[in-house]
């Protein structure tokens, strides 16, 4: 191991610059440009003029070059247009935040209790948390449809007791449920891996020094598990805020999320990669900002608890 072996990272660096950096630059370029059509002499065309030119060209038996050229023009229009979809981004952020908070409250006690178990039982518990992740997430989400539908299993079950039926599918609640279901393991795993490192003696010492259970939690366990909370929040919030399929399956497409909006621009009903890139860019910036906030939780123990 010496200085020379650092060259072995070069293929990776090359790879990452081609497949991560260049694509992000492309997003940036698309976000700030629009496609403008020109004829072969350099005159700007409207879409309909272009169509006419193409029709003439086809009619003439394709004589000469294809008559319409496309060029990218710099513009702020796309970014400004993203503002129109603020409500979608806000809606996504709200739903994803709710899902993240619920995941945290649902997963935290579990991670703690498991981390205090015998090692062999810990392994089994964690295995059962990870097991659902191996099943295809679309099928699992689809299974929730079966459960939540009007004629679904839950409503049928409740019907036996004369309750219901409830409207569960195609609501915002169902979307949040889908997010929690799909991303809960991503919360539990980092929490657990941090908590196993908390020594039992540390907690006992807190009790010996007169701390009650609440104090022991807030003064010892919580601060020590902060890095786990930070990465758990990141790992749940980022995929939840950018998901584009859960809202379609469980939300009925009536409440679009930002991910759906991006998909719509690229492969959906309204093709506009420039606008799609602009939305992606805004999403990316927003997510990076959120992460820089949660990162503060990580190494800072006192201020971080407030957030």
């Amino acid at each position, binding site marked *: *191991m010496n200085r020379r072996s650092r060259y072995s*990272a070069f293929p*990776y660096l090359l790879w*990452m610059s081609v497949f991560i950096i260049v694509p992000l630059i492309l997003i940036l370029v698309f976000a700030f440009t629009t496609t403008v059509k020109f004829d072969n002499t350099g005159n700007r065309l409207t879409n309909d003029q272009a169509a006419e030119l193409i029709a003439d060209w086809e009619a003439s038996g394709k004589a000469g070059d294809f008559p319409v050229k496309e060029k990218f023009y710099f513009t702020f229009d796309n970014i400004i247009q993203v503002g129109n979809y603020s409500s979608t981004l806000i809606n996504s952020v709200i739903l994803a935040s709710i899902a993240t908070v619920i995941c945290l409250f649902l997963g935290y006690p579990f991670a703690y209790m498991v981390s205090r178990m015998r090692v062999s039982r810990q392994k089994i518990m964690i295995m059962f948390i990870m097991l659902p992740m*191996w099943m295809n997430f679309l099928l699992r989400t689809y299974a929730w449809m079966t459960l939540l539908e009007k004629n679904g299993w839950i409503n049928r079950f409740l019907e036996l007791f004369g309750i219901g039926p409830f409207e569960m599918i195609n609501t915002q609640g169902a979307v949040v449920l889908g997010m929690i279901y799909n991303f809960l393991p991503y919360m539990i795993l980092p929490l657990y891996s941090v908590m196993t490192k908390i020594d039992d003696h540390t907690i006992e010492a807190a009790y010996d020094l007169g701390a009650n259970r609440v104090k022991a939690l807030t003064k010892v366990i919580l601060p020590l598990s902060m890095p786990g909370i930070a990465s758990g929040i990141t790992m749940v919030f980022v995929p939840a805020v950018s998901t584009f399929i859960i809202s379609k399956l469980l939300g009925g497409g009536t409440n679009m999320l930002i991910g759906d909006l991006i998909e719509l621009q690229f*492969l959906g009903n309204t093709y506009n990669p420039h606008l799609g890139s602009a939305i992606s860019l805004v999403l990316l910036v927003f997510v990076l900002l959120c*992460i820089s906030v949660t990162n503060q939780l990580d190494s800072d123990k006192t201020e971080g608890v407030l957030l």
Partner: protein
Amino acid sequence: MKKLPSRVYYIFLFGFLYIPIFVLIANSFNASKSRNVWTGFTFDWYVKLFNDADIMSALANTIIIALIASTVATVLGTAAAIGIFNMKNTARTVIMNATYLPIINPEIVTGVSLMLLFVFLKINLGFLTLILSHITFCLPYVILCVLPKLRQMDIHLYEAAMDLGCNRRQAFRKVVIPEITTGIITGFLMSLTYSIDDFVISYFTSGPTSQTLPITIFSMTRRKVSPKLNALSAIIFVIVLAVLLVMNVREIKASKKNKNRR
């Protein structure tokens, strides 16, 4: 009495995680095509599953792509980890930050950006683009698995090997590689998992010739999901359960042995 609340909590949590899976598996034995009506018990869907050319070829594509992508990612990533480990501090920090980028980047942004790249480079979306993009999102995980093992390694061992007459290559093979093997394998397994399960990035970078299982499932969820897919997920569930159980039993046995020895 203290145990009761925690027991309720466990039941609730595991119930939440497993009820949908139970629904999937139960429906794979349902004779009715409709997922809400139970008309009888059948194994038909399992037979039909293996006769369904679309699902089977998607499964084959998924496995082949996962194997190729995670192998390449493991090789490239391990080499990269060794390189990064030997770098100066500043360079290392910069590169590690860049390595985190694809992990924290929302999947959909990675997906559309890769799609733009492939279109820009005029590469037809298909097998190749899927493998390239899978390698790309697997690489960071490999590095993050291997790098800690390098840090844990005692560098003096390597030097000792050199002192004892190994040349660089031998010392590397006999000392460094065994030390980081567990990291490499974990990285490979993680890549495999992510690659098999990936939907979002594949959705944007796959073409008509390379439908992977998640893509096929997606196009089915937009129409009628065939119970054949329930059968497939039941099979996958049993296999994964078996593998994980074997793994755990072995580990527990091994750790017990170690304890006894002590």
